[in-house]
């Protein structure tokens, strides 16, 4: 039985904040396949392209036939706990601070035996379901969960180390005026976030959903304009030390590419919000979040960017907007590297056309705010790095992986790449 967590006590400002430490991040290049799969929450192993033998640990040649063709494939996560131990003494500081720590040997139904972290509700010798999660060093690791759901299982202290669950955490949503602000705030409120700060630019200008937003439990609307460095710094000074999850939903979007626009005015606005806005937020909030990556049960845990999937491949009908998102995507990789020492996850949520005024003439499917919000909460609970929301985004990333150049050509077909 997992003991449900309770809201953390008020922090004692006299006490030193625990400095983030990390499990070992050393891996062979082959083993990085685990991290790539865990970034999307997939349980994958290498499967020999010639003889079909499933491999583990990750290797460079098949242990059954010596083929070097070893692609990663989704495999059954079912297995049985063959042996277990509780580590009470560790040479690694991260685990030393968190002992006792339960690990085990699981025989997978798919074949190999693995070593893995073990959830407290797994019974001795019991059947398990393996998930592949990113640990605090950003590496993929296996975690054995009970094969059936158990009450409050997400509160298992070892599992919580590998998720970014909003429960009893404080969230900042950066743009109250966005059409998705209400859905996002509602979803975090439902997920038991303790406070939901929502940033509001130009508060003198009315917008239709303000009352609905303010009515959501635990929502607190504060002034924030991501295009204004002083505004960002002021808010960071006020709540930067208690922001556990930051969701950057601010964006500026207008149709048009290069020649159908007469100037660079909109392009400048797109970069100002979508790229420089992210950078300002990261400069103001990033250091404090990174420093609080191990600050107890409700530590700083995740930074969420909502990006257009056209960051991967330009959609000419929204060509300049796509370009600003490509810039933001690249910057997010830099942010991920800089956040990693603190164990703070950077999760990018990619979406195709959204259900809003600027995408009004586009045909469905379009991503509704509630669907976006659901995907963000689910992604945080699974500790993901990359989430593709909706059919358009999922389709695009699959095509991009199959061949980026072919996709580029497809995107410029008549219709401007309404994939």
């Amino acid at each position, binding site marked *: 039985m997992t003991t449900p967590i309770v809201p953390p006590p008020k922090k004692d400002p006299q006490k030193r904040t625990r400095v983030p430490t990390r499990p070992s991040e050393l891996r062979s290049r082959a083993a990085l396949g685990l991290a790539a799969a865990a970034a999307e929450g997939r349980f994958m192993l290498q499967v020999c392209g010639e003889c079909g033998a499933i491999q583990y640990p990750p290797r460079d040649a098949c242990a059954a036939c010596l083929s070097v063709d070893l692609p990663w494939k989704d495999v059954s996560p079912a297995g049985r706990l063959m*042996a277990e131990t509780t580590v009470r003494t560790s040479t690694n500081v991260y685990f030393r601070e968190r002992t006792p720590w339960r690990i085990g040997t699981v*025989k997978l139904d798919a074949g190999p035996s693995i*070593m893995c972290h073990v959830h407290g509700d797994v019974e001795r010798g019991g059947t398990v379901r393996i998930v592949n999660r990113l640990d605090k060093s950003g590496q993929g690791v296996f975690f054995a969960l009970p094969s059936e759901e158990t009450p409050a299982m997400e509160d298992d202290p070892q599992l919580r180390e590998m998720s970014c669950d909003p429960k009893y955490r404080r969230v900042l949503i950066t743009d109250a005026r966005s059409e998705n602000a209400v859905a996002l705030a509602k979803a975090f409120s439902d997920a038991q976030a303790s406070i939901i700060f929502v940033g509001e630019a130009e508060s003198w200008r009315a917008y239709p959903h303000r009352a609905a937003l303010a009515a959501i439990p635990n929502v607190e609307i504060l002034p924030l304009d991501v295009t204004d460095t002083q505004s960002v710094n002021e808010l960071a000074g006020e709540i930067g030390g208690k922001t556990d999850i930051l969701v950057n939903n601010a964006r500026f979007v207008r149709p048009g590419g290069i020649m159908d626009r007469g100037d660079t005015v909109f392009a400048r606005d797109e970069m100002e919000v979508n790229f420089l806005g992210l950078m300002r937020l990261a400069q103001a909030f990033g250091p404090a979040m990174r420093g609080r990556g191990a600050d107890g049960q409700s530590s700083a845990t995740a930074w969420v960017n909502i990006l257009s999937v056209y960051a991967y491949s330009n959609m000419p009908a929204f060509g300049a907007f796509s370009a600003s998102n490509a810039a933001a995507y690249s910057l997010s990789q830099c942010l991920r590297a800089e956040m990693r020492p603190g164990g703070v996850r950077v999760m990018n949520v990619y979406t195709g056309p959204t259900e809003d005024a600027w995408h009004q003439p586009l045909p469905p499917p379009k991503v509704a705010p509630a669907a976006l919000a659901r995907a963000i909460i689910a992604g945080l609970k699974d500790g993901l790095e990359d989430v593709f929301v909706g059919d358009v985004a999922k389709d695009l990333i699959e095509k991009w992986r199959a061949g980026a150049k072919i996709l580029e050509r497809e995107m410029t077909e008549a219709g401007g790449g309404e994939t």
Partner: protein
Amino acid sequence: MARSSSSRRLGYDGIVLAAPVTVPYQRFSKETAHWWIARALRQTLKAAGVAPRDLDGFSVSSFTLFPDTAVGLTQHLGLTPRWLDHIPMGGASGVAAVRRAARAVQAGDADIVACVSGDTNHVDSFRRMLSSFSRFAQDASYPYGAGGPNACFALLTDHYMNAYGARREDFGRICVAQRDNALKNPHAIMKTPLTLDQYMGARMISDPIALFDCVMPVSGAEAFLVMREVDARAAGIPFARIRSTIERHNAFPDDPIQMRGGWAMDIDELYAMADAKPDDIDLLQTYDDYPVISMMQLEDLGFCKKGEGPEFVRAHDLTIAGDFPHNVSGGQLSAGQAGAAGGFIGLVEAIRQVTGTAGPTQVKDATTAMVSGFGMINFDRGVCSGATIISGDAQ
């Protein structure tokens, strides 16, 4: 391709082991592996009256020589061998060194091979070694709690206990008997008696592994010579004959968790080549980094059936004066684990035993010993295994 059925293996007639040396262990040392190996080499060569310059064969096992290997040691120690070996098999390195060196001497590629193992133990060296022990350990075991070998063997022990009904007391008997033996060994790191109650009451390290199931990492070195019998006689030094050997790596890869080592594949050959049976063995030196693995060796080396290890240790006295002398110098559990020298400790003591030169730890009338090696938890199990039967000149 079909292979011709293996013809009878050539014996080791006329090839002997001599000049066993143990450089007394220390818990921590400021010195290097080079320093420890040099001391062991000097002592073993001195015993046989061989000048370092005249040594023509050299075999080294060590974890802490980096960035050097046996190659660097030749220049460092002023050796000019025509046969050189570096054995990375940890706990199986002693038996492997015998096998390779004996064939080299037998074939005339070398006249005398000095087999040396040694490691230093700095305050932080154990932690450093664990995180980069092997690629599979780095990728697939160290990220899970970083419990090192304690955690890996805890899993094997947990499984063994469930499968065969072994109790912690059974492992305790092995540890307590070895401590008793160690008290007679002036060089053992552990110098105070251990009772079964103390064993049972010790703090857990990685359940069900508790404090006295774990070896103490130390600095130390061990060495011996492989040479022709005629040369040993000419030098006037006692020697032991090699009656049989086996070696196996990555045995039973399809076992979901380790319940047996490579010995189980080759044990019949070990006895047949020596023309011996389990009753002929006067003392057994198993590789004892954790008691569960010694118990598996009792089974896999033919002293009892699989799963009967717990009953075997309940029914036998494993001390020097007992009916089944086992790890008579105290083994690694009580004498200390000096890195790769842990793969030599049982063998070097066995050479002393069968040549009647063991002094305070001497088993009465011991003429034949079995020594087994086990090494390298590459991921979830020990990969290397080996064993040898040796006998004194009188045999």
